[in-house]
């Protein structure tokens, strides 16, 4: 994973609550065995509607997605994070994320930014008024600023997750440093636990 210190750019005002991962990337895209090639599937069904906000040329090139409560609910498919990243998004701002999506996003360097409902509503309205409005997310300081919208806020991100984003660390390599702890745990696992073979 590449390190992420700062995300700055324009935003796409999706708004909607309860956006599930079936909407972000429909299941027929999941037949692929690669990690790439998902951008054309992002919000595929909604994009078929010409009035869908993503089809509005003024928002082309947005780096931040503004969404409603419970973004990324439903299926565990990490393809949702891949499709967003491949489409140029580096962060999603929402009042609340579904747990698995949040974890998948962090693993891929897509920054999940949780802000209060009112702040997200303010940002959506501001970006709808002025699609060129810039939002800046500082991972190190855990802040979101959009002076033109009058927004300056902090967002929750635990130290560990922040460090991993900042340093772009490989989780597996980190865990393998604890080989001795893992082996010690394995030595004391109860005997009755099943083995598949």
């Amino acid at each position, binding site marked *: 994973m590449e390190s992420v210190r700062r995300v700055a750019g324009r935003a796409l005002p999706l708004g*909607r*609550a*309860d956006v*599930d991962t*079936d*909407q972000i990337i*429909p*299941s*027929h895209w*999941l*037949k*692929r*065995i*690669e*990690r790439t090639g998902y951008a054309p599937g992002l919000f595929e*069904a909604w994009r078929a509607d010409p009035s869908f906000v993503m089809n509005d040329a003024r928002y082309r090139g947005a780096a931040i997605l503004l969404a409603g*409560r*419970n973004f990324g*609910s*439903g*299926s*565990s*498919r*990490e*393809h949702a*994070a891949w499709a967003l990243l491949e489409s140029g998004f580096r962060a999603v701002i929402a009042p*609340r994320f*579904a*747990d*698995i999506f949040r*974890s*998948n996003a962090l*693993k*891929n360097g897509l920054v999940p930014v949780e802000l209060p409902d009112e702040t997200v509503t303010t940002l959506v309205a501001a970006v709808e008024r002025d699609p060129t409005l810039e939002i800046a997310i500082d991972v190190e300081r855990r802040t979101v600023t959009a002076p033109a919208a009058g927004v300056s806020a902090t967002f929750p991100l*635990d*130290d*560990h997750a922040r460090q991993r984003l900042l340093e772009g660390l490989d*989780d*597996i390599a*980190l*865990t*393998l440093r*604890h080989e001795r*702890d*893992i082996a010690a*745990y*394995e030595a004391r*696992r*109860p*005997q*009755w*636990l*099943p*083995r*598949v*073979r």
Partner: protein
Amino acid sequence: MGSTLSQKVWERHVVRRAGGEPDLVYIDLHLVHEVTSPQAFEGLRLAKRGVRRPELVLATMDHNVPTNEEPAEPISARQIAEMARNAAEFGIVCYPMGDANQGIVHVISPQMGLTQPGMTIVCGDSHTATHGALGALAWGIGTSEIEHVLATQTLAQPTPGTMAVTVDGRLPKDCAAKDVILGIIARIGTTGGVGKVIEYRGSTIRALSMDGRMTVCNMSIEAGARAGMIAPDDTTFAFLEGRPFAPKGALWERALDEWRSLPTDAGAAFDREVKIDARELRPYVSWGTNPAQTVTIDERVPDPDALATDARDAARRALRYMALAPGTPVRDIAVDAVFIGSCTNSRLEDLRAASEVVRGRRVKDGIRALVVPGSMKVKLDAEREGLDRVFQEAGFEWRGAGCSMCLGMNPDVLRPGERCASTSNRNFEGRQGPGGRTHLVSPTVAAATAIAGHFALPADLR
């Protein structure tokens, strides 16, 4: 103070705890399927890493496989072949299409006795909470985490919060386990469990069979929860005893001692508690595009203007997608298709209940009706009881095991605009195929609906 069931299982699996870091926990069983794993195996190959404990991994093929004995189309076939290749290369047991053990990942593991109380279980699938019905702590993970578990047999995860949902009282006669969980989600909403493990408690839950408990735990994710669990009891032990992977002899006795220590201590506190009176539950039918948008079968499609302000926009959009007018009685809604299956409702008890409703009756003309057993074993058991004939004589298709029409990824899809009564767990837009309209119901309501042609209870049939 005391600890809750989920806290006990978590504590017993902590490999490493250090300030400022999430706990590193050991994973007892890793279930793998063809759809979310190929990129994880590729990651291992690129990093020249192996699978740490292949004997703690089980692979199957379920999401993408046809259930109608036709060969898979080329793109699906490539993914299915990739699963077989990865399993062979990394020394993992895999049950391919046609194997006697094959089936939906959440159906086969409990059925073989691999899922046991007190275990940690993960799978690249959000319905992994199903295994919590046996008192395991089981949750869904993404592909990066699959790779992490394959390489290390551990996961670093923030400790989940705790939540108790207590359901007490006798369930009305026409209500099923499905109505218990749909009722719970209607009450706590799609984010009611975010960050938490829900423990289902109370006399109603205790009275459910293992199949029913799996239905309840299965849909924990639909309430946003990380997992769902039910404390193991005599029902659990009776279910497990004698299954192929269950402990035997002296080990069984030792396991029982351990399992009996798992239930939540009397003094333990939960972060959140919700109480539900089972006598107030009714058979539910979803009207919208998220699993909290439900009403009882006796009600009407709601008027968005009468809902809470923050629910109105979503309700309007959902009704537009579902092509439903506010005020329509649920029983007046006609369907084009009926799907009985999925990891929520494809076990033997579900098929028995549905078959009793359709026995000697005929599916309404023009309705496409499918029964898809959750595993090859469920299929065989059902056939031994003659359920396949009951369904087929009524006009249902009787299929092989798999996810089928639950997710619109294999040949079983709704056509745009088609309306389906489905025993699955998700009514998202396009979930069963682009433009398809899904209504979540219990197996008996699905069966009665297939006969009546519109939403119905078994008692409504003449």
